């Protein structure tokens, strides 16, 4: 039997303010095509916004980030790739509001939000860039 490759929607975004919203527009079309419900679509959008913001922050301003939406039978897989310097995920602490109150650094919530909102999340990071792969089941 011939295995058919899942359809893929590709998007390239420049590192510009609010460009993550362009990614959510595409995600909305893909979610609708897959028959995902409103809550699932909203969770995907939020996770995607955070993944894009992280990718933008790791990237130089003249670079671009790439997003692949892979439409599979039972799930949506989204990959967000930047060409930044990478990061060591073992050094990323789980944020807690108790620690943020009273601290000068209130940010650092992106990865935690992605983990909570998506079904699976994986990171592959080298000195040439980072790819975040996240999935949402139908």
């Amino acid at each position, binding site marked *: 039997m011939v295995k058919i490759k899942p359809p893929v929607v590709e998007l390239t975004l420049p590192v510009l303010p*609010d460009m993550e*919203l362009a990614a959510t527009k595409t995600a909305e079309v893909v979610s609708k095509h897959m028959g995902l419900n409103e809550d699932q679509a909203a969770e995907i959008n939020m996770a995607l916004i955070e993944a894009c913001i992280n990718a933008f922050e790791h990237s130089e301003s003249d670079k671009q980030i790439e997003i692949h939406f892979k439409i599979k039978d039972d799930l949506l897989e989204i990959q967000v790739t930047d060409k930044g310097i990478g990061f060591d995920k073992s050094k990323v602490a789980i944020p807690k*509001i108790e620690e943020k*109150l009273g601290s000068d650094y*209130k940010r650092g*919530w992106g990865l935690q939000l992605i983990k909570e909102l998506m079904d699976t999340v994986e990171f592959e990071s080298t000195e040439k860039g980072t790819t975040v792969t996240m999935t949402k089941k139908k």
Partner: protein
Amino acid sequence: MSDFNLEVRKEGEVVVIKTSGYLNNVGGEKISEVCYKEMESKSKFFLLDLENTKVVNSIGVSILIEIIEKLQDVDGKLGYYNLAPIVEKTFNIMGLTKYSSVFNSETEALEGIL
């Protein structure tokens, strides 16, 4: 750039801020600017009507944590109503609902925040 606008009004001791648009760093800064200015005039109870803010990011929400912190110093309170489910979920994940309040309506919010 996405638009983010605020309408500010006072209901007795409570400052009500109705937002519209994407709550990102720019939106968060605009909210904090209003709050800190009102705090200089001794206001300490703030409500955000988020009916027209369906999309947020963690940077914008982090600025709300900063406002909560400053309000703690003066025994003030921050509350929200008309939240989209994903916005409420985000606030829960980030722990904001431990230190500020989500209300179901404006009436409930105006009573509950004091």
